[in-house]
């Protein structure tokens, strides 16, 4: 028996171009290719969870039909990002003949993770075997794709899913799955997802599994997003010099919400910027926060970096009071 799609992002992953929500321009152009039964090299750029990977696969299915897998190779460049992969694995596949099709497709997902050298090594391969092999590249940041590659591709920009389109789709899913969702729950989904469909659907499913009724609370909990006021509290307590209490609050956020260091830093950033504290102090806090953020990427243990920031806050705060 085939495993059922219990994971909703997979269950509701578009199988054909027709099922892609929004992104009308992109979809229209891609459908044109399907009619012609031909594609150039393509580059899909845009933020996470907006349908790039889904579109690449849907396009391939629409083009090749039932046996699409025979002529399709998907590689996640973020996992295999070195030049040797390009020189060997990719090249090898590029020059093998397609099976019952005019060409095959190599889909390099998250290609912005490829090193510049690796991208450069791709250039001749894209040209030399283009008769039998087309590339689809996807990326979050087009600026990380070297120009020679951009110039070999037709570029498609994916936009964040607008609230209305997202709401509509989420409501559909709720209906099909028999989920009750409150209005503020839906709004919370829009807020936490920021146009990222994957995030929204995952949050919805997680919240629905744990709650009879999905409301804003459930969504914040599940998405490891602290409520804005919790972060504000954390800041206040730390700045008042109470390190231990601040650390307990931090632990709670990290353990209960499962927030990563990066999550906490991002929310701290939002809160500090929009807070009403002294502007000069803000600059000092943000400056140091930037350093913490950087150290998170270099370090091994998120909690130590954040604890260090709290220690800094609890010291800087006292200094502020004296003034």
């Amino acid at each position, binding site marked *: *028996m*085939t*495993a*059922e*799609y*219990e*994971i909703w*992002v*997979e269950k509701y992953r578009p199988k054909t171009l027709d099922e892609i929500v929004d992104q009308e321009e992109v979809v229209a152009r891609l459908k044109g290719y399907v009619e012609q039964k031909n594609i150039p090299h393509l580059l899909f750029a845009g933020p*996470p969870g907006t349908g790039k*990977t*889904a579109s690449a*696969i849907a396009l391939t299915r629409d083009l090749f039909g*039932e*046996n699409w*897998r025979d002529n399709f190779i*998907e590689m*996640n*460049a*973020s*996992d295999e990002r070195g030049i040797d992969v390009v020189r060997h694995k990719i090249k090898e596949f590029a020059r093998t003949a397609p099976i019952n099709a005019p060409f095959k497709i190599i889909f390099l*997902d*998250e290609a912005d*993770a490829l090193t510049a050298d690796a991208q450069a090594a791709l250039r001749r391969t894209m040209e030399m075997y283009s008769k039998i092999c087309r590339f689809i590249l996807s990326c979050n940041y087009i600026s990380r794709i070297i120009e020679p590659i951009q110039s070999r591709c037709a570029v498609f920009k994916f936009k964040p899913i607008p609230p209305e389109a997202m709401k509509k789709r989420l409501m559909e899913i709720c209906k099909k*799955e*028999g*989920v009750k969702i409150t209005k503020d729950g839906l709004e919370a989904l829009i807020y936490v997802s920021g146009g990222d469909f*994957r*995030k929204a659907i*995952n949050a919805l*499913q*997680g919240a*629905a*599994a*744990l709650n*009879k009724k999905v409301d804003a609370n459930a969504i914040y909990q*599940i998405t*490891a997003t602290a409520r804005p006021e919790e972060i504000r509290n954390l800041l206040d307590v730390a700045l008042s*010099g109470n*390190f231990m209490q601040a*650390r307990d609050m931090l*632990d709670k956020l990290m*353990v209960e919400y*499962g927030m990563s260091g990066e999550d906490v830093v991002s929310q701290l950033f939002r809160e500090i910027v929009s807070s009403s504290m002294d502007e000069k102090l803000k600059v000092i806090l943000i400056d140091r926060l930037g350093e*913490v953020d950087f*150290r998170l990427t*270099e*370090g*091994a*243990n998120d*909690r*130590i*970096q954040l*604890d*260090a920031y709290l*220690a*800094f806050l*609890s*010291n800087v705060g*006292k200094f502020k009071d004296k003034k």
Partner: protein
Amino acid sequence: MERELWVEKYRPKKLEEVIASKEVLEKVKLWAKKWEMGKPQKPLLLAGPPGVGKTSLAHAIAGSFGWEVVELNASDQRNWQIIYRIVGESAFNETISDEGEFYSTKEGKLKLIILDEVDNIHKKEDFGGEGALIKLIKRGPKQPMILTANDPYNLSAELRNLCEMIQFKRLDKRRIVAVLERICSKEGIKADKKALEAIASNAGGDLRAAINDLQAIAEGKKEIRVEDVVTAKRVKELDVFTVMMKIFKTKIPAYNDVMLLDESPEDFIVWIDENLPLEYKGEELEEAYDYLSRADIFLGRVRRRQFYRLWRYATYLMSCGVQQAKKDAKKGFTRYRRPIIWQMLFQTKSKRERLKAILTKIGKYSHMSRRKALEMIPFIKILLNQSLEIAANVAAFYNFSLDDLEFLLQDRKRAEEILNYVREKGLHRVEDEEFYLRQFKETKQEEPKKEESLVEKEIDNKKTEKSESDKKTKDKRKSKKAVSDVTLDKFFE
């Protein structure tokens, strides 16, 4: 029957058999080659915790290059007269053959002088030993010399500086397990990997301890299982509480104490982090945390690039850095706390590797990189904790193994239940079915065999999906769908 200690039976005889970083091995090889070419080199000082291969490496060099060995260790008296006599003679006089003839060093083999455990040269009993050694080394020995020590900072700085120091690390668990596995196979013992892992964990990076424990448990057995591993926790040389007290209360450098701990720096920093705010306040706290934060950066670099050399900076900053951040020594008693376990969760290598394997699977089937796949884990965990049917479908969808499930659920029994369900219902991924289908198409003429009824049924399903002509099976599908809808509805009530 002769009883040999496995630690000796399996002591490396050649350089290649010694487990050490490539860097260390290369360095040592080069050192030896230069000697072979007649270019005297500084003595090597091999430093590090017990049972990690210092002595073995010294002997293995001699083994690999066919050198003779003269060894003086802590079991020998090593006062200045003895040092002069034994070391002086070997290092400067020409080699003496067995027949008592003199060879010049060029024709004769090189002779490796091993001064094992030099940090244990006794101040009284071995009076003048270290001084004599320093004088001899300064004169430029004509034979290669290797010193070993657990704590190089017990030696005088003068002696240390005359040597080329190579720092040995506690061996990582995976490598210890590999050695144990090899020994088991040579001894014809079937060993449960989990059992070996338990032995390795218990050894705290000391391979000798691990091999000894293994022999105690396994000798004469055909098979060992986890239950057999009940050896008592090895006594730690220093416990974390003592070392923390030294760090937090005093300014006496505690670097070496941390080096001698069974805890890796990655684990120990978590202890410091947990307890630091109990002792330090305000400015001190901020400064100390800045050192911890920098120590953590070095740990991150070690983790990502395997630059184990950087461990020493991390260790130094988390000990001496934190110590110097305080104004005065602290008095009084402080009850230190154990760090919360969740922090330790992702610290160990085997766990990180398991996680990586899981992320690879999620990435493959949900079309995303491992990095992005991380965001799926919380949701997958939730689903795995739902009804068995849902959990099993998720498990089959991602092709999770028992270990994967156990890691995600932290519950072996549940993991087994889920996997059993998957097997019972024959759950598998869509592609597998397409694969069967295509195979079937190719061999259509042949009569499907009876045993393959499972495959057959799936093919039926598949056909209806495609052609939707067979009404009967279509209805069957419908009813199946209805059932799953019901369960889902009930679920989300």
